[in-house]
C-alpha cells in the first residue's frame, strides 16, 4: 500500500515536471505537434473515407445493381441456361444492351450511345433518376430516357426524338442515373433507356454486334446469395453465361476502389513519415538543449529513469495531442472528398465517422512520436551529472546498440503499418524498401553536397559567401533534414506531374501523328465496300480495313477448356478460357508490335495445323509458348492451330491491337465483320461523316478518339487532382518540418548572429548569409527530388506503362524555383528577429 502511494506520488511528480518544462517550451513544441498533425490528418481522412466508400458500396449493393442477382451473357441464352432461368421461377426483368450510334433527327446530330432495352419493371432496388422527377414509364409510353448531359450537349429537349437502327422513339425525360450504368463508361457511351421491344425492332441485333443479354431476378425470400453463386456459377460458366449477385458485384467494386484507396493511403503515410522525420530532428535538437537540465536534475538526485521518463511523458503527451488534432482535421477533410471525387465514384457516399480510423489516428500519433523521439530520448540516460561542473561537448550520446534497436523498431513499425494497409507482405516489403532507397538517395545527395563543399571550399570568396556555405556543415546543421523534407515533397509532386504528363502526351501523340482518330466498328463484310466509299466521298482516307473473326479457346495443349475450368490445380488465367476473342488475319506486323520469339508466318500454306501469332500477355496467361497447340471454336467449327510466334504488343497505343493474329489465307471465308479507321482533321468533318454513316448504316458504331482523349484527360485530371491534394500534404508537412528545422537552427545560431551584430554586422549582411544558405538548401532539395522523380517515372514508364518517357521542363521551370523561393522566404522570416532587435534582448530571450 505504502509502495503504491510512493509510486503514484513519483509518477505525479514526473507528470508535474513534464508539464512545467513543456509549458515553458510551448513555442518550440508547437511545431512538433504541427508536423504530426498534418501527417495524421492525411492518413485518417483517407482511411475514414475508404471505409465509408466500402460500407456504402456494401449497403447500396442492391441499388447499385438494381436486382438481387443477374444472369448475363454476351450471346442469346441457350436451352440449358433457359432451363436454369425457368427453374429459378423465371426472370423478373430482361435487358438487351449494346453500343450503337444514335441520331437525333431534330438537328441531325449523332452520338455513340449505350442502348439499354428493358422490360419487366427493372430496377427493383434503387431508382431511375430523371431531372424534375418526370414520368418514367418508358415501356408503357414506348419512349426513351436519354442521358441528361448528352441532351444538354446536343441541344435536345423532351418531346424530340431519337433514332437508332430502324426505330425512332420520342425522348420522354432527361436521365440522370440508373442502376447498372458505370459513370466512367457513360462518358464514352452515355446510356439511353428504351423498351425491350424497341431494341428488337431496331434490326441492330446481328452477327458481329457486341450485345449483352441480362436476366434480372428479385429474390422473394432471404435466399443465400453465396450459396446460389457457388451452385449456379460453374454451371452457367460452362454455357458462357455468368451469375452476378448483388453481393459479389459490390465486393468486386469495393476491391477495385480499395486498391485506389490503398495507393492514396500510402501517399498519406509518406506525408506522415515526413512529419516523423521532422519530429525526430526537432526532438533531437530539443533534447540536446535539455541535457544541461538533465545533468542538474541528476545532480540533485534524480535517477536516470526519472529524467528519461520526464521527457518521454512530454513527448507522449505531444504525440497524443497531435494525434487528436490530426484526427480532427482528418475528419473535416474527409467531408470534402465526396465533392472532389463525385464523378469517379459509383455511388453517393454518406460520410460517417469511422471509430477504427479515429482510434488509429490517435494511437498513430502517440506511437510514432515516441518511436521517432526514442533515439534522442535514450541520450538522456548517458548524461553525466558532472556536466553541471564542467561542460563536456563531446560526451558520447546514445550507445550504438540502442540506436540500432530504435532503428529496427522504426522499420518494423513502418512495415507493420504498410502491411495493415496493403495486406500483402511482399508489397509492404517493397514499400519499406522504396522508402529506404528514396530516403537513402536524398540523404546521400546531401552528404555528397557537403563533401563537395568541403573539398572545393572557396577559401578566397567573400565573407558572406563563405559564411553561408560554412553554415551548411557546421555542428548542428540542418542540411540533411531539410534536403530530406524538401526533396521528398518535390519528388512526390514532380513524379505525379511527369506520370500524368506522360500518359496524356502518349494519347495526344497518337492524335497528332498520321494515325486514325475515328474508328468504325461492327461493319458487316458486305457493307465494307460501301462504308469505305462513304468515307472517301467525305474526302477522308480509309486508313485501315481490319477483318475481325470471333472465336473461343476450345482446347489448350490437348486439354479441353471445360477440363481446364474444372481442374482446381490449373493456373491458367480464367479469361483465356471464358473470353470471346476478336482475332484478325494479316501478313505483316504493325508499328505497335515487336516479335520476341518464334517466326512470323505471313501466309497460310495449307498445312493441317494453322500457325498463329499470340501476344506476350496471352502466352503468359495461357501458359503457352512457341510450338504449343491451341484449338479454337470459330463459331461452331473447330480449328487446330499452333503458336508460331509471340509478339510484344504496346497496348497503351491508341491503335487496334490483337492478342491473336492469324496468317492470311485461312479465315477469309469465316463469318466476320470489319473495323475501318479514318482520320478527320476538323471536328465538322467528323460530325458530318458520323451523320452520313448513321443514316446509311445504322448498325455501325463510331468511336471518336478525340472524345475518348478528352474523357481520359478529364479522368486523369480528377485522379491527378486527388493525388496532388495528397502530395500537397507532404509539401505542407515538409514546410512545417522546414519551419521547425529553421527555427531550431535559429536557436543554434542565434548567438553567432548576435555576436556578428555586436561586432557590427549590418542587417543586410546577416540577411544575405541566411538567404544564400537557404537558397542552396532549397535548390539542392528540390533538384534532388525532381531528379529522383525522373528516375521513378522512367521506371514506371518502363515497367508499368511500357512506354517511352520524355520529361517535360515544367517541374524544372516551375516546381524547382517555387520551392527554392519558399525555403528562402521561411529562412529569412526567421532571421527578422535577430536583425531588428537589440542583441542583448535576444540573448536574454533565448536563455528561456
Amino acid at each position: 500500500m505504502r509502495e503504491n502511494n510512493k509510486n503514484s506520488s513519483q509518477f505525479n511528480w514526473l507528470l508535474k515536471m513534464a508539464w512545467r518544462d513543456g509549458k515553458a517550451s510551448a513555442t518550440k513544441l508547437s511545431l512538433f505537434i504541427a508536423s504530426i498533425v498534418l501527417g495524421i490528418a492525411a492518413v485518417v481522412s483517407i482511411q475514414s473515407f475508404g471505409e465509408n466508400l466500402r460500407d456504402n458500396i456494401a449497403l447500396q449493393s442492391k441499388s447499385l445493381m438494381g436486382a438481387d442477382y443477374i444472369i448475363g451473357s454476351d450471346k442469346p441464352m441457350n436451352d440449358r441456361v433457359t432451363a436454369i432461368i425457368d427453374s429459378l421461377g423465371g426472370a423478373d426483368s430482361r435487358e438487351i444492351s449494346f453500343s450503337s450510334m444514335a441520331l437525333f433527327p431534330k438537328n441531325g446530330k449523332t452520338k455513340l450511345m449505350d442502348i439499354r432495352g428493358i422490360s419487366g419493371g427493372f430496377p427493383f432496388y434503387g431508382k431511375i433518376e430523371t431531372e424534375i422527377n418526370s414520368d418514367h414509364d418508358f415501356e408503357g409510353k414506348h419512349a426513351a430516357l436519354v442521358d441528361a448531359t448528352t441532351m444538354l450537349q446536343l441541344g435536345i429537349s423532351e418531346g424530340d426524338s431519337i433514332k437508332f437502327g430502324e426505330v425512332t422513339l420520342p425522348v420522354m425525360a432527361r436521365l440522370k442515373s440508373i442502376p447498372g450504368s458505370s459513370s466512367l463508361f457513360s462518358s464514352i457511351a452515355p446510356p439511353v433507356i428504351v423498351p425491350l421491344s424497341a431494341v428488337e425492332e431496331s434490326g441492330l441485333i446481328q452477327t458481329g454486334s457486341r450485345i449483352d443479354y441480362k436476366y434480372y431476378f428479385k429474390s422473394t425470400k432471404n435466399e443465400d446469395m453465396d450459396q446460389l453463386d457457388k451452385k449456379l456459377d460453374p454451371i452457367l460458366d460452362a454455357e458462357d453465361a455468368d451469375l452476378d449477385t448483388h453481393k459479389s458485384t459490390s465486393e468486386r467494386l469495393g476491391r477495385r476502389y480499395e486498391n485506389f484507396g490503398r495507393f492514396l493511403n500510402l501517399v498519406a503515410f509518406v506525408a506522415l513519415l515526413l512529419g516523423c522525420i521532422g519530429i525526430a530532428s526537432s526532438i533531437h535538437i530539443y533534447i540536446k538543449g535539455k541535457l544541461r537540465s538533465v545533468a542538474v536534475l541528476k545532480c540533485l538526485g534524480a535517477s536516470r529513469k526519472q529524467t528519461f521518463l520526464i521527457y518521454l511523458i512530454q513527448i507522449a503527451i505531444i504525440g497524443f495531442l497531435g494525434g487528436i488534432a490530426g484526427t480532427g482535421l482528418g475528419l473535416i477533410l474527409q467531408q470534402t472528398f465526396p465533392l472532389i471525387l463525385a464523378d469517379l465514384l459509383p455511388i453517393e457516399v454518406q460520410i460517417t465517422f469511422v471509430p477504427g480510423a479515429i482510434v488509429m489516428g490517435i494511437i498513430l500519433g502517440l506511437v510514432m512520436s515516441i518511436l521517432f523521439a526514442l533515439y534522442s530520448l535514450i541520450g538522456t540516460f548517458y548524461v553525466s551529472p558532472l556536466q553541471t561542473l564542467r561542460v563536456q561537448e563531446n560526451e558520447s550520446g546514445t550507445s550504438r546498440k540502442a540506436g540500432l534497436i530504435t532503428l529496427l523498431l522504426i522499420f518494423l513499425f513502418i512495415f507493420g503499418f504498410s502491411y495493415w494497409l496493403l495486406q500483402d507482405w511482399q508489397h509492404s516489403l517493397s514499400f519499406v524498401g522504396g522508402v529506404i532507397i528514396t530516403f537513402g538517395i536524398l540523404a546521400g545527395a546531401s552528404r555528397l553536397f557537403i563533401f563537395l563543399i568541403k573539398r572545393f571550399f572557396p577559401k578566397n570568396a567573400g565573407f558572406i559567401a563563405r559564411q553561408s556555405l560554412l553554415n551548411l556543415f557546421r555542428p548542428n546543421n540542418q542540411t540533411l533534414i531539410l534536403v530530406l523534407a524538401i526533396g521528398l515533397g518535390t519528388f512526390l509532386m514532380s513524379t505525379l506531374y511527369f506520370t500524368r504528363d506522360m500518359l496524356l502526351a502518349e494519347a495526344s501523340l497518337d492524335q497528332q501523328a498520321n494515325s486514325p482518330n475515328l474508328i468504325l466498328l461492327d461493319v458487316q463484310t458486305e457493307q465494307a465496300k460501301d462504308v469505305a466509299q462513304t468515307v472517301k466521298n467525305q474526302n477522308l482516307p480509309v486508313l485501315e480495313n481490319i477483318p475481325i473473326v470471333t472465336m473461343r479457346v476450345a482446347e489448350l495443349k490437348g486439354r479441353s477448356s471445360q477440363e481446364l475450368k474444372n481442374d482446381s490445380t490449373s493456373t491458367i488465367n480464367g479469361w483465356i478460357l471464358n473470353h470471346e476473342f476478336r482475332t484478325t488475319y494479316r501478313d505483316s506486323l504493325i508499328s505497335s508490335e515487336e516479335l520476341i520469339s518464334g517466326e512470323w508466318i505471313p501466309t497460310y500454306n495449307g498445312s493441317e495445323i494453322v500457325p498463329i501469332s499470340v501476344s506476350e500477355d496471352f502466352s503468359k496467361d495461357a501458359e503457352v509458348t512457341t510450338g504449343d497447340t491451341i484449338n479454337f471454336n470459330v463459331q461452331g467449327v473447330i480449328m487446330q492451330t499452333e503458336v508460331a510466334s509471340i509478339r510484344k504488343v504496346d497496348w497503351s497505343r491508341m491503335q487496334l491491337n490483337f492478342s491473336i493474329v492469324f496468317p492470311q489465307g485461312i479465315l477469309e471465308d469465316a463469318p466476320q465483320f470489319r473495323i475501318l479507321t479514318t482520320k478527320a482533321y476538323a471536328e465538322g468533318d467528323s460530325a458530318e461523316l458520323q451523320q452520313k454513316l448513321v443514316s446509311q448504316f445504322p448498325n455501325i458504331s463510331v468511336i471518336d478518339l478525340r472524345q475518348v482523349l478528352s474523357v481520359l484527360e478529364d479522368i486523369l485530371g480528377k485522379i491527378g487532382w486527388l493525388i496532388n491534394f495528397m502530395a500537397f500534404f507532404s509539401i505542407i508537412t515538409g514546410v512545417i518540418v522546414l519551419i521547425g528545422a529553421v527555427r531550431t537552427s535559429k536557436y543554434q545560431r542565434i548567438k553567432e548572429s548576435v555576436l556578428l551584430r555586436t561586432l557590427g554586422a549590418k542587417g543586410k549582411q546577416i540577411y544575405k548569409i541566411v538567404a544564400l544558405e537557404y537558397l542552396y538548401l532549397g535548390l539542392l532539395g528540390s533538384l534532388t527530388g525532381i531528379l529522383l522523380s525522373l528516375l521513378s517515372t522512367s521506371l514506371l514508364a518502363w515497367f508499368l506503362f511500357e512506354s517511352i518517357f520524355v520529361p517535360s521542363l515544367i517541374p524544372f521551370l516551375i516546381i524547382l524555383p517555387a520551392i527554392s523561393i519558399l525555403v528562402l522566404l521561411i529562412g529569412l522570416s526567421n532571421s527578422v528577429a535577430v536583425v531588428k532587435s537589440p542583441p542583448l534582448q535576444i540573448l536574454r530571450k533565448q536563455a528561456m
Partner: protein
Amino acid sequence: MSKILNVQNLRKTYSSGNNELTILHGISFEVLQGEVFSIVGPSGSGKTTLLGLCAGLDQSNSGTIELCGTNLSNLTEDQRAQLRNRKTGFVFQDFQLLPTLTAVENVAVPLELQGNKNASKKAKILLGKVGLGDRVHHYPSQLSGGEQQRVAVARAFCNDPEILFADEPTGNLDEETGEKITKLLFDLNKELGTTLVIVTHDLELAKKSDRILRLKGGRILETELS
C-alpha cells in the same frame, strides 16, 4: 566530531588522445561534521575534479571516498543520485537553475524527488529567508545573477543536507553581491549546522573557513587552519 567526508589515495586520470592525463595524484584528506572546508588552488590544479568526485558526480580511478559513512565506489549511479538527494546540497558558479522552472519550483525539486508533499511550502519559506519572497514565481531569465544564486542557495539548503558543496559560488558575481551570497551561505550553514565544502579562487572567502586545502598540479600542497 565525526568524519563526514573521508578521502584516501584518490587518483583520477583522463585520456586525451593517446595520452593519459593525471589530474589528481593520490589525494587524501578528511572533513569533519559541521566544518567549513575550502579547497583552493590555481586553474587546472584539479579543484573542481576533486569536488565532483567527493560529491559522487564522477568516479575515481583508484582510492576511496566515504561520504556520510557510505563508500561511494560501491554504489551504482542511481544509488549515488539517491545519496546526493538525501544528504548533499550544491551551489554552482553558474547557478545551474532549470530554465523552464520558476524560482519556487527550482527550490522544491530536491524535496519533490523525495516525495515530500510540503516541498513547495518549504521552498517558499527558504526563498523568503534569502530575500526573494516576492519573486517566487519568476523564471531564472527574469532574475539577476545575484538573485539566481540566492535561489540556488535556497535550493541547496532545501533538503536539509548534511554536507553542502559549493563550486566557486561567487565566481560569476560582482564583489558586493558576492559578499552578500557568502554571508547568506555562512549564516545558513551556522543556523542549520551543515558541513560546507567550498572550491574557490577567492582567498578572502577561503580565509573565512575553518580549514583550507591547497592544491597544485593535482597534489596537496598543504592543509592549514585559517
